[in-house]
């Protein structure tokens, strides 16, 4: 078992570690799903995973390609209708953390999955909001994970599909019955958290081998660093083994279908 690992693995393991055992996690497809299942298969066996397809407390053996793969239903405690999922479980306050990916994110952790360019004359149409707009406001808090790049990390998103802290960092102030919003952003380079006052994202931890310059170069605004910048712990041997097994199982399953 080698302790060598890729930056993607570093990202996934770090994202997984953000989840605590017993949390109830509304899982986005893709990277969040990979991280959430790694958490479940390692340090957080009782983390409750909920997917917007209505599958409650699911324990997939392989990662789903879509948000509604049969594997999610087959391994769930129970499967409810989609209106019930959004009304009773998300809006009803049963989700402690929403785990999201995104196409664009800005310094106030606002997310854009709608489009690049002008709404009525888009350069690139992205898929749209999906569950994110209400996950971000109705879950207790939000974790975000995505690869670090200047295209993705922009000063101001072209469109706020999903609220982080608004255009001025004050988007949640005085709003009743709203979650805490993004509490951490996990990339392949670092971990960021919103400044307690201004809500601007601040790098709090650098992954092994990553320099401040690497982060600065991959971020579309003048990124700030915490005064006491931590070093993200390396992935453990077991985490890497479980993650690689999971991905290999997944690849075999999807290729065979």
């Amino acid at each position, binding site marked *: 078992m080698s302790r060598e690992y890729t930056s993607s693995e570093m990202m996934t393991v770090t994202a997984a570690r953000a989840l605590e055992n017993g949390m109830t996690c509304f899982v986005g*497809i893709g990277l969040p799903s990979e991280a959430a299942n790694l958490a479940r298969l390692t340090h957080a066996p009782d983390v409750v995973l909920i997917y917007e397809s209505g599958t409650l407390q699911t324990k997939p053996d392989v990662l*789903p390609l879509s948000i509604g793969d049969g594997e999610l*239903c087959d391994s769930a405690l129970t499967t409810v209708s989609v*209106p019930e999922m959004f009304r009773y479980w998300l809006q009803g306050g049963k989700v402690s953390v929403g785990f999201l990916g995104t196409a664009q994110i800005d310094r106030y952790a606002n997310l854009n999955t709608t489009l690049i360019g002008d709404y009525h004359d888009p350069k690139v149409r992205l898929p749209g909001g999906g569950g994110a707009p*209400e996950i971000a406001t109705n879950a207790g808090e939000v974790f975000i994970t995505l690869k670090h790049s200047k295209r993705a990390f922009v000063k101001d998103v072209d469109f706020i599909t999903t609220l982080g802290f608004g255009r001025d960092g004050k988007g949640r102030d005085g709003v009743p019955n709203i979650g805490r919003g993004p509490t951490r952003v996990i990339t392949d380079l670092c971990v960021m958290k919103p400044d307690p006052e201004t809500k601007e994202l601040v790098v709090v931890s650098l992954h092994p081998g990553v320099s401040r310059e690497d982060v600065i170069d991959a971020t579309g605004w003048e990124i700030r660093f915490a005064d006491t910048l931590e070093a993200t712990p390396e992935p453990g041997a077991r985490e890497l083994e479980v993650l690689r097994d999971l991905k290999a199982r997944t690849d075999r399953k999807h290729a065979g279908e």
Partner: protein
Amino acid sequence: MADFLSLHDAVARYVEDGATVAMEGFTHLIPFAAGHEVIRQGKRDLTLIRMTPDLVYDQLIGAGCAKKVIFSWGGNPGVGSLHRLRDAVEKGWPHKVEILEHSHAAMACAFEAGAAGLPLAVLRGYVGSELPNVNDQIKFIECPFTGERLAAVPSVRPDVSIVHAQKADRAGNVLVEGIIGVQKEAVLAAKHSIVTVEEIVDDLTAEPDYHPNACIIPGWAISAVAVAEKGAYPSYTHGYYPRDNRFYKEWDAIARDRDAFRQWLDENVHQQVANPAGGKA
């Protein structure tokens, strides 16, 4: 009671040019066979409602059936873009398509409200999102008890809803099982409904896996039932066949290219009258 029709006749009877149509199924049970029949019959100017347009609407849009698409997440799940949807929105091919986009929560609530016969759905939604800037159907109301500002969207009330399900019985009652999505809501919210099924059984309540709280839609709440074996392929039918994730990945290349798409459509939809499920069954 539901009429038992061929898929051809059900679509011919209930899907009119210009109609508002919801084909639902949340990743699971997507009514591809019915969608292909709509393409074959050359329906035009449809307003297509679906939370996740998925490949089925990508195909309908590329085939020129859509005037407008109402949706909340328009990607190829786990793969990337819906290139036919993007080509229509970004380049106007084969013609310009209008879009109206919501969040999942709002659309799910709008289906629920449609089934409940209400004109609107109320939710704690769209807080801080810019979607209300570009969708004039999103409004806000004030709770008369707490003063809280809540989002309101019009309910979904399609002219016709089309869903796929596991089985119907001889009275036209339909069992939906597994990821049930908004299938029941889509059927109940619509003026007319078509349900395609994998098979017909004698009596759902006499089936060995009958459960008193299963999601069963009574035949008298459905307009037409049509048998379409593998009718959800390349999506899946819980208990019958799995999702063809490989095809979903292959679709990316097919849909990126207009000619490749036209060729696929010709071979797999237009020339497949005898096999309404299309695709590689």
